[in-house]
């Protein structure tokens, strides 16, 4: 037999600083592998690759804001999926929920037109977007609560239905023969998030930061947060102590959907000012990893979403300069995530040497 065996550490037995050392070590190791891959593929030296990455993320003021906006949007979707995950409800439909929110926002901009003052318009958009997201999220939750229908696949399918609905609207309202919808209200800016001090994305960032704090408090100190945690740990315990599991599932998914809808609104009103199939750009899936890597802690999620967006923007710059395909950043992100996922093992388990036979 092998000379070692694996033992599970008791919960919270690993001091937090060791856990973080392990995680940081894993990220560094992952970065090393990424550097190796990059060097092999581009033939440039590692230092150059690294500086290019940093430049790509922080190089100019515009890039810095684009980084901040990227972090804010990814963080927003991650916050949205977190309560559901904490409850062990595998909602991988954030993409569709956010897209429906974005569609609602874009529809408001197109159909209510320019008759309302901007603040009222934004209010209407926020409400409809959040409602749209919530409706898209509550459908799988209702089936899960009533018939225990598998939510992972249900929410996954809802993504593609949402994407097709958006495609339908794009087909109907495409500008000219372009096959896409142009920037809406380009001249009047009705329904656009106002820029603060000339910074277009500042308001987005502030809203998401406030949301982060809210979610932290909600999960940690509210009764709802407690119920979510209990249902996530053990449904039977929850039933035993008198928690209405069905109600918690539905309520939590509504909250999840509301926030996804808000993310869609922020993307449409605060950044793109139009809607397309790619408005959410895969954030619904990346958010799951952000949330999970942060162990569902909203504050830590700022860090994890920064990490992922940094690698995305940085490797995007590398691929652009070296004339490589932009999907390079997905490869790099994938490698980093593999390493972080793998590192959890060393936090939760320890490897022990086998004692000698006959002892």
């Amino acid at each position: 037999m092998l000379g070692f065996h694996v033992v599970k550490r008791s919960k919270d037995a690993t001091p937090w600083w060791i856990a973080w050392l392990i995680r940081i070590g894993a990220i560094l190791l992952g970065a090393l592998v990424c550097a190796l891959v990059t060097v092999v593929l581009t033939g440039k030296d590692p230092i150059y690759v690294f500086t290019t990455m940093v430049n790509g993320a922080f190089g100019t003021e515009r890039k810095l804001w684009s980084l901040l906006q990227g972090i804010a949007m990814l963080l927003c979707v991650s916050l949205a999926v977190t309560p559901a995950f904490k409850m062990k409800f595998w909602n991988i439909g954030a993409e569709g929920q956010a897209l429906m929110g974005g569609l609602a926002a874009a529809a408001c901009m197109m159909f209510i037109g320019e008759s309302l003052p901007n603040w009222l318009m934004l209010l209407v958009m926020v409400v409809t977007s959040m409602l749209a997201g919530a409706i898209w999220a509550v459908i799988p939750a209702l089936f899960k609560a009533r018939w225990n229908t598998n939510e992972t696949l249900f929410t996954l399918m809802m993504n593609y239905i949402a994407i097709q609905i958006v495609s339908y609207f794009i087909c109907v309202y495409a500008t000219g023969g372009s096959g896409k919808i142009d920037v809406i209200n380009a001249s009047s800016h009705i329904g656009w998030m106002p820029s603060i001090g000339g910074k277009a994305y500042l308001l987005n960032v502030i809203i998401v930061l406030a949301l982060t704090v809210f979610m932290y408090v909600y999960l940690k100190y509210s009764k709802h947060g407690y119920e979510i945690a209990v249902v996530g740990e053990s449904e039977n315990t929850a039933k035993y102590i008198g928690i209405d599991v069905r109600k918690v599932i539905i309520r939590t998914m509504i909250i999840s959907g509301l926030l996804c809808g808000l993310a869609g609104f922020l993307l449409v009103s605060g950044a793109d000012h139009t809607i397309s199939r790619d408005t959410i750009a895969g954030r619904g899936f990346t958010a799951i990893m952000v949330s999970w890597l942060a162990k569902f802690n909203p504050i830590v999620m700022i860090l994890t979403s920064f990490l992922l967006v940094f690698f995305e923007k940085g490797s995007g710059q590398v691929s652009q300069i070296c004339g490589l395909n932009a999907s390079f950043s997905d490869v790099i992100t994938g490698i980093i995530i593999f390493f972080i996922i793998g590192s959890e093992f060393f936090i939760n388990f320890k490897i022990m040497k086998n004692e000698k036979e006959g002892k």
Partner: protein
Amino acid sequence: MNMLIQFIQRAVIQGTPLLFGSTGEILTEKSGHLNLGIPGIMYAGAISGVIGAFFYEDKVGAANINPLLAILIPLATSMLGSLLMGLIYCFLTVTLRANQNVTGLALTTFGVGLGNFFGGSLIKISGSDMPAITLSTTSKCFKTTLPFAESLGAFGKLFFSYSFLVYVAIIIAIVSSVILNRTRIGLHLRAVGENPATADAAGINVNRYKYFTTCIGSMIAGLGGLYYVMDYASGIWSNGGFGDRGWLAVAIVIFAIWRPNMAVPASILFGGLFIVYNYVSLPGMGIEAQELFKMLPYLVTLVVLIITSMREKRESQPPQSLGLSYFREER
């Protein structure tokens, strides 16, 4: 009539990548692992095959290609690529007991990225003078069909007009079904997926079964990607061209209620649903309605998902320990 035959033919062709993918996923799920990385693995399988074929064509020149090698080399590289993807997944979820959903999604990001990255940069990296990845010669070898199909009329068109990978897909599905239900290995495998602790107590090497089936499942799924580029897309790689078929393959697993033989008709049905928008024309229907018809495969999956969960039949439930990692000392 002709249109119907053509529709069925197309449905089979569209359904084949789905069949490879869903057979692979069924095997994996039977061992208790929900592999959401299948879409990424199919991309990786496709691009690995393309890389193999690309270097072969580049080396010997398109004119003097050996048809047998032109099939075997992409086949081997494709399977190697998807095997590596399967190993990454196994190592993380079986050995390191990581969360399967997160690992799977990361694998999909990685695999799709890998496909599009090499698809977009292969020519630059290899320094070749080809203008684009068009492996039409290799594709021709893959597309070879039975010579007598044309002479058999409608019957021949329906059953014999496909390239060999279509039949391979069906054979793999049926063989998998037989192995799962009629052999001891299959029994052990099902035990591992239903209740690994019991299987372990019965002396079955749980991890070995998990590794083997997940890796074999990945290799099968990867062939779906290879079929798509080499046959359906005629050897022309276009980024993102494979689309969401990987997720459809995952959906078919439910539709086929975890039975590989049921995946054959299910895949053909989904292949048909995938292209039905080309064939429906109602009075007053504009081009935008096609977008709504493209929803059909997903809607049908939802309906099946809901019905199976409502009926609660024991035979049509997922493997009991699906998605849970197994740790012997945790009981």
